[in-house]
Structures are given as structure tokens and as C-alpha cells.
């Protein structure tokens, strides 16, 4: 099947960048160290055992998880492949090919993501415990729910990138806006600091966007911060975004394609 082949290709393509992967792991881990000591100092200065439901150990685990999965989930690295082909006009030839455009790129990018979960994420999760004590999921069910949530986060992350890329259909300088969107995602997804640390009004703003579903939700499930009804609510919201955002992307892409065909690029 085409999409499975694309997924494998996307995965294999990453194998070529071995030295980049090693450098990436080292850099991600170093940033993890910096952020961990920052949180240690913050907890120390706050005089509290728990901030927003996070213990210090949770906060350290938070840095491990974000550094481990941030590149996979497209928060550390930005993606402009589709935007590039729209800008250069190469997309015209792609559109004549018999595949579903959104699924084409989704398959490829999922290949990259899965590669990075395994070869950039897991090494960091393995190295971290040698330096700090981490929180781990307490049951098999929690591991499964985390995996489910991480998978949905990948799709939403892809949608976020794809949708921004599609803006190139309308704006010549969409790339600049895309860069802002990417940097904004680091903040509003709860990558830089957990959303529970936010003041309520700021968190409310973030919750109106799909961004928390990319980082904050899987992490809160992993840590057990989200439990009971809150957990199901978070998963439900993620599922909603998977469906809604996929539809939004498809509609946006169709509108863009129509515009391209009518105006001739």
C-alpha cells in the first residue's frame, strides 16, 4: 500500500542522518539538564512541594518527556516541506499524481515521528534516570493511555504544521507567520513550562487552541496529573482535535488548490 510505503520511506530517510541524530540527542539532553536545574531552583525558591499539581519529580520528568519527544512532535523542529512546494509552484506536478495529498505527507511525516520517538526519545528517557529520579506510569493501563495520547498528539502536531504550510496558498510570506506559529506552539502547548503553572486566564486562552493536545495532554497522562474524569475529558478533547483538525486541513487544502487552479498559481 502506498501510504505504508511512504511511512517506511519517511522512517528510513531518517536513518541517513545518524550523526545528526546523535548530535540531536546530545543537544536535547543538555537542554534537559539546564531545564531540570531551573525547575529545582524554582521549587526551592517557591518553598512549595507542589506547583499546579506537579511535584519536583514530576517537573523533572516533564523536562525529560518534552526533551525526548519535542522533536518528534514538531515543537523543536519546524517543517516547511509543503509550504516550499507551494511557493516554488512544484505542487502543480504533485497535484496531478493519484494520491491523497494530506495522507501522502501525513504518512511520510509519521514515519519521521516514529523514528524520532524511538531513536531520539527513548535514548533520552534511558539516560535521564542515571541523573535524576523520574516519575513513571504506575499501571499498564496508564502506559497504554499515554501511547494512545502520544499517537493522537502526533497527528494533531502534523495538522498544525500542514495547516500553517497551506497558508502559502494565500500569502507569499506565510513562512514568516509559520515561524511565529511554531514558536508560539512551544509556549501554548505547554512545552516550555507546564500549562498548570500558567495563571488561569492564560491557560484558558491556550485551551481554546489545539496546541495543548500536542504536548500538555500526553504529559499529564504520563505523570498521572490528569486522572479520572479529567483524564477522559482530556483524551476526548484530543480525539475531537484529531477529527476536527483533519477536516480543517482537508478543507483548507481544497480551498487552496481551487484557488491555485483558478488563478494559475
Amino acid at each position, binding site marked *: 500500500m502506498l501510504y505504508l510505503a511512504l511511512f517506511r520511506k519517511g522512517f528510513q530517510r531518517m536513518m541517513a542522518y545518524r*550523526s*545528526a541524530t*546523535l*548530535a*540531536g540527542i*546530545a*543537544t536535547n539532553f*543538555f*537542554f534537559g*539538564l*539546564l531545564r531540570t*536545574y*531551573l525547575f*529545582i*531552583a*524554582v521549587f*526551592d*525558591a*517557591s*518553598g*512549595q512541594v507542589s*506547583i499546579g499539581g506537579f511535584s519536583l519529580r514530576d517537573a523533572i520528568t516533564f523536562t525529560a518527556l518534552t526533551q525526548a519527544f519535542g522533536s518528534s512532535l514538531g515543537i523543536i523542529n519546524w517543517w516547511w516541506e509543503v509550504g516550499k512546494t507551494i511557493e516554488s509552484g512544484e505542487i502543480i506536478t504533485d497535484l496531478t499524481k493519484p494520491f491523497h495529498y494530506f495522507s501522502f505527507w501525513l504518512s511520510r511525516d509519521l514515519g519521521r515521528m516514529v523514528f524520532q520517538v524511538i531513536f531520539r526519545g527513548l535514548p533520552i528517557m534511558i539516560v535521564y534516570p542515571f541523573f535524576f529520579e523520574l516519575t513513571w506510569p504506575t499501571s499498564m493501563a496508564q502506559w497504554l493511555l499515554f501511547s494512545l495520547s502520544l499517537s493522537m498528539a502526533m497527528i494533531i502536531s502534523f495538522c498544525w504544521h500542514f495547516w500553517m504550510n497551506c497558508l502559502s496558498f494565500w500569502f*507569499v*510570506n506565510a*513562512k*514568516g*507567520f*509559520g*515561524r*511565529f506559529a*511554531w*514558536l*508560539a506552539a*512551544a*509556549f*501554548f502547548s505547554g512545552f*516550555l*513550562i507546564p500549562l498548570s*503553572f*500558567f*495563571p488561569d486566564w*492564560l491557560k484558558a486562552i491556550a485551551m481554546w487552541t489545539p496546541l495543548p493536545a500536542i504536548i500538555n495532554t500526553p504529559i499529564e497522562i504520563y505523570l498521572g496529573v490528569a486522572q479520572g474524569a479529567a483524564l477522559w475529558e482530556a483524551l476526548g478533547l484530543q480525539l475531537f482535535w484529531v477529527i476536527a483538525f483533519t477536516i480543517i486541513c482537508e478543507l483548507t487544502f481544497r480551498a487552496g488548490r481551487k484557488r491555485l487552479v483558478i488563478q494559475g498559481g
Partner: protein
Amino acid sequence: MIEGFRLYARLMSAQIRSQMQYKMSFIMEFASTFMGMILEFASVVVLFIHMPALDGWTLAEVAFLYGSAEFAMALSQVITSGFDVFPETVRLGKFDSILIRPRNAMFQVFASELAIRRFGRAAQGLFVLGIAIWWMDVDWGVAEWSMLAVMILGGVVFFAGLFIIGATFSFWTVEGLEAMNILTYGGSTMVAYPMSIYAEWMRNVFIFIIPLAFVNYYPSLFLLNKVDPFGLPGFMPFLSLPLCSLVLLASLVFWHFGIKRYQSTGH
């Protein structure tokens, strides 16, 4: 020498003129980077909701560290843009075009590129730094301003050295040295907060082996009248520029070594 500066100015203005053909794209990148990076600082502000000070440093003081580190690193990155794209320069054979010109090769690499789009990050650093200067409890006299100027200069020089070292690796490997990001981006992030929050081994590495702590931490201790928590001698803040210059010097030596290799191995 003066003629060299003039030529540099000419080449830079040519760079700016050619990039101004994409003016809107430049403005967009500038604005988006500026605003995006402001959000990064916003996360520091949010942390201060939960504490009065970070290891004795107020928000304004941390903003000073953060702003100066970002500004020096980003400004240095703009100035050394030619080295940023150097792996590509070598890979595409453009370095040959440099070697056939009757000017110093390093000078030409410096003058080969000016990524003005990167000013967005420098502007963000300057913005945060400006707020911190205005807000901090410091009497700004001649000594303080001089120390600030020397400190920024030291930071620019320090990071320039690192960028040049990273680029020089492209004489050996195709990609240049990506692991250098640890010291450049990682380094500027590290000194955005007081050194005292880090583990002892990290502090020792970045004081005694790689003089990262001199980029802004020691000068800031002087400006803010803080006691050195590591009990090192009082002249440490004044070592800032000399030590940072040593990094640049090391990069020049390394470059000299690398270019020899290029000429003997070919590409």
C-alpha cells in the same frame, strides 16, 4: 586596515540591498521571530508567579541575564552569518570562488553573508535587556555602562569564536558540527539564568574550561553588587573580555589549521 573596513561595509551594504528585494519576507521573519521569542521570555515571567526570586535573583535581574545572553548570541550570529552558511559554501564549491580573490579568505567569509532576518532574535534580546536595565536597582554611571558594553562585546566575541569553530569543521565533515549547538544555543540558554542554580560539575566546566560564565554572569555580579557564591577572586568580572577573546583567538588558529587541510585535500 581602514580600506578593509570600507570594503567590508561595501560588501555588507550589497548584502542588505540584495535582501531588501525580499523586504516583506524580511519584515515577516523579523516580526515573527521577535514575537515568538518574547513568548519564550514570557515563560520565565510565568515561573516568577510561583516564587519571589530565583536563587536570590529578581525577575529584573534574571531578565538582565536572559536579555544580555540572547542579545550577544543573536548579534554574534548575525555578524558571523557567513560562517553559519559555511558548510554549504564548501559543499557547493563556493569556497573556491573565495580563494581566487586577492583578499584574506576569512575576511571574505565574514563578508559573504549577512542574515538580517536573524535580527529578530537580537532585537528580542535587546528589548528584554532594555527593560531589565530600566527596571533593575542599579545606579548607572560610567563604570556600569562601560562594564555593560565590555560584557556585550565579550559575549559577541565568545559566541563568534564558537560559530567559527563549528563552521571550521566543514573542512573535515560535510555537515559542519551540529553538536556545536550545545555550546551556542545551549550556552546562551544556560547563562540566561544564574550559574549558581546548576550542578557543580556543570559550573566548573563552564567557568574553568569553557569561559561561558564570563559572557554575562561575572560582569552581572559586579553590576549588581552580588557576592560570588563560588568564592572566586574579585577580579573575575574583569577577565570577561580577555577570556572571551581567547575563544575567538582559538577559533582563528583552528580555522588556519582547517584551511590548510582544505587546500591539501580538495573538494
